[in-house]
């Protein structure tokens, strides 16, 4: 059971959030209303997707106070606490891409890719900037016209339409073209949260002494380029900004060499023991 603790918790938060959006529409619940571009928590607290708001700024929109407050709350939360946790704990597209990775794992096609994986990893940052600039020319938040996160949440809470096609395309791309193709290479929202959460307090910590180099963590990690510089090499936090704090590596590790930990902001103390999970 503890092998899947974080996985179950993550699925629980992901489905709860979708269910609350659904309830807000169908039964008028006021717990969490809207969708992942903008939500109202308890009918009071605004929460806004920073990337959507930045695109609106580039498009030339007048930004309301609610949006500014909502963006700040999200920025502060992920910058200080969560890291890139949005991607693995909140985003529903993660359900689709994790399913694709799962299919790859059970069919033993982990490494069959059509595209050079290592080089392509940085594509999302270029795409993030390009879509911001594109918003100027489009005259609206350009990425929101194709954003599968929006399509997925709206499909659940409002109406489906052909929304399922977006998700099927992402599944096919991830399962047959490129492993972790969408979340790990293309999605600019994930790239945005990587940048926002790069210095967050909660990070995964590796203990070299306990590690037996079995490679289970590397096998299961959707962004394993963040693990390779650390695993079996040094006892340190996983500092790669693309780590989604999903906790899968912690669960699959049979040697207790990985755990969530709070990292210190004070320089010089970085390598000291200060874990508390």
């Amino acid at each position: 059971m503890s092998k899947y603790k974080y996985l179950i918790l993550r699925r629980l938060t992901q489905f709860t959030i979708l269910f609350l959006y659904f309830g807000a529409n169908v039964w008028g619940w006021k717990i969490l209303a809207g969708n992942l571009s903008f939500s109202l928590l308890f009918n009071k607290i605004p929460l806004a997707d920073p990337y959507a708001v930045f695109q609106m700024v580039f498009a030339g929109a007048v930004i309301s106070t609610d949006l500014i407050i909502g963006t700040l709350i999200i920025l502060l939360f992920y910058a200080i606490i969560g890291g890139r946790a949005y991607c693995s704990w909140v985003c529903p597209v993660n359900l689709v891409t994790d399913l694709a990775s799962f299919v790859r794992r059970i069919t033993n096609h982990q490494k069959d890719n059509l595209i050079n994986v290592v080089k392509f990893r940085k594509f999302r940052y270029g795409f993030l900037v390009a879509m911001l600039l594109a918003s100027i020319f489009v005259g609206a938040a350009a990425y929101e016209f194709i954003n599968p996160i929006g399509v997925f949440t709206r499909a659940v809470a409002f109406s489906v339409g052909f929304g399922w096609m977006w998700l099927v395309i992402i599944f096919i791309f991830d399962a047959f073209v490129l492993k972790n193709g969408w979340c790990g290479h293309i999605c600019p929202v994930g790239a945005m949260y990587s940048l926002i959460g790069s210095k967050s307090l909660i990070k995964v910590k590796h203990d070299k002494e306990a590690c037996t180099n079995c490679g289970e963590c590397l096998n299961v990690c959707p962004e394993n380029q963040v693990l390779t510089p650390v695993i079996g090499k040094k006892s340190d936090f996983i500092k790669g900004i693309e780590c989604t704090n999903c906790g899968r590596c912690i669960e699959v590790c049979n040697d207790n060499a990985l755990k969530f930990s709070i990292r210190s902001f004070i320089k010089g103390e970085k390598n000291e023991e200060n874990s508390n999970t």
Partner: protein
Amino acid sequence: MDRRGFLTNMIQLSAAAVATAGVASAFAIENKDKPLTLRPPGALEEDDFLKTCIRCGLCVDACKNRDNIFKEDGKKVITLKLAAPGDNVPLGTPYFEARTGPCYMCEEMPCLYACPTGALTPNECKNDKGKVAIDYAKMGVAVIDPSSCIAYWGLQCTACYRACPEMDKAITIDWKQNKRTGKHAYRIPIVHEDACTGCGMCEEACVTEKAAIKIFPREVALGKAGDRYVKGWDKKDQQRVKNASTNTKTVTPVSAENPLQNLNEGVSWQ
């Protein structure tokens, strides 16, 4: 990786990002341009609306859970919808279809006040004196097709007139003699754009197989006379053209030349 390799990689990735963004933008521009979309009350002008709307759906939630829910055959009539792929409306933005789900013009305007971004704003729902009310909404304007409107045939109808929440202001009935029979009257519905909110109750009520009265966004349906024409008998209309430029001149190939030239050389006497 050496510096040359790094630079090559950077250029390749940027090129790929720009190309992908180009395709995505092309789709966005194509998807954005849907001039027939009907927006909730208080919506900004379409261009600004698309910039400002964050597609959260709080207006749709508010519309769906309002107090005066209307039921037809036991089913809730849904007015505001959030565009899903395939709806032929800019993706994720709120809209309504008058024929199947018109706006019931709630006095409290829950959808408008639910908007967190200002894409729906009371400023767009005001009269000249600055009073905010749903009666001053400008969601669209009703347009009648006289060829399929049975009142124009001479049949008794007035369904749209009776359905209109702004009865006798937005739609009035014009009585005319029916010369074909000699003893009946035409009762013709006339839409007045200044009072029409574009709620779509008329389109929903229209009895013909396909509605003979339809709502279109005002940008699409209404014309503009411009500064060249003025109602000489109307003081208010004269104010409209007060600042019009008088320095207008039309130049055609003929008028560009000296008029005398045309008189003397334009005609051949052989």
